[in-house]
């Protein structure tokens, strides 16, 4: 095994996603031992690093961009990672969060915080605090914000798909996935 310092670093993040793709990463099961033999995790919810500690070979991006924080984080991933991968349908096409693109943002907020049948909000106010990132007018797939290098569609992409793509990239082999591993659902 190579020494820790020489191992390529992998960062992951969930933007406007549901963490299902990260669950699918964990679903590689005991192969995660093989994975940590050849990589180190950098900024990632898996190891709970909040910031980048160095240059990363691969960044896995789950989710599209629904607010300004998502955009900022995605741009920092682009700056810090050599290869960026859209992981899952939300990063690839917006996914379930993008359903709000079909109604105006204001209507969407009113339904969620004022008019919805189960809403209890006596103050009648919409969330508006300097701590809260502002919503974008539409949820955007990652590649409409920064350049993405690879796409692994799926909701979520299967553990085998993620494993096949990651190991190919980390061993300098072409990423060629068999028909059964590319699915949009």
């Amino acid at each position, binding site marked *: 095994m190579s020494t820790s310092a020489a191992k390529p670093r992998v960062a992951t993040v969930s933007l406007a996603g549901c963490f299902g793709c990260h669950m699918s990463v964990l679903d590689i099961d005991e192969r995660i031992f093989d994975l940590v033999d050849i990589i180190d995790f950098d900024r990632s919810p898996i190891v709970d690093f909040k910031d980048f500690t160095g240059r990363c070979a691969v960044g896995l991006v789950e989710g599209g961009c629904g607010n300004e924080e998502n955009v900022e984080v995605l741009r920092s991933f682009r700056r810090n990672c050599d290869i960026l991968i*859209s992981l899952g*349908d939300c990063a*690839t*096409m*917006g*996914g*379930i969060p*993008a*359903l709000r*693109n*079909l109604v105006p943002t204001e209507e969407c907020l009113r339904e969620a915080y004022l008019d919805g049948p189960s809403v209890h909000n006596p103050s009648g106010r919409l969330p508006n605090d300097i701590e809260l990132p502002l919503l974008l007018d*539409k949820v*955007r*797939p990652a*590649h*409409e914000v920064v350049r*993405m290098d*690879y*796409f*692994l*569609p799926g*909701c979520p992409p299967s553990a085998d798909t993620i494993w096949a793509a990651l190991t190919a990239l980390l061993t300098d082999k072409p990423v060629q996935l068999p*028909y*059964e591993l*590319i*699915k*949009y*659902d």
Partner: protein
Amino acid sequence: MSETFTFTIDGVEVEGEPGQTILEAAQAAGIYIPRLCHKDGLEPWGGCRVCTVTVNGRSASACTQPAAAGITVENETDELVDMRRGIIEMLFVEGNHFCMFCEKSGNCELQALAYRLGIAAPRYEYLWPTRDVDASHPDVLLDRNRCILCARCVRTSRDLDGKQVFGFVGRGPGKKIAVNASARLSETGLDVTDEAVDACPVGAILRKREGYRIPVGLRRYDGTPIGSDIEKGASS
């Protein structure tokens, strides 16, 4: 039987009969030419252009162009495959296609073509149009978010069911499927047994209460790409 003739598709010699289109002759020879608006049993429409091939160097839609003796047809060139990818990508961005919860997923021809052509993400920006859903019919759902305007339901209802339930209204980005009633699908003569219901290649026209009945892994295009049946020689 009238005289047969030969021509080539990607250098392979193929036999044709007078009256056959290029797509039909190719299919009979076990060569799949991708198509979306064409369906066996319907008159050729030539609308989606996914079946575009070159005939002696000039582009033509294989579903409408007659096969002829001695022509040189190109089907699987890099340029044509990329053009087909572009068409499918445009169809994805100009509608609202949420495969992750669509009942048609796994059996959808649009999705299957994207798989076969190897589309990971579209090169165009998503448009997120506002489209409406007509759930008025007791047995059939019409979701225009998924409609790709292939006219299969229009032609099937008119030519096979003899009903003219569906038609087009509007032009350009505003073009949409209309129903032959003052307002809603429930007011038309559509029956759940009509062939038009099965004609839809995507999830725009669906039978109600049948969603997700086939488990993931066993659906039509889960294991084998669209067109595999033709390539195995099971021609129509």
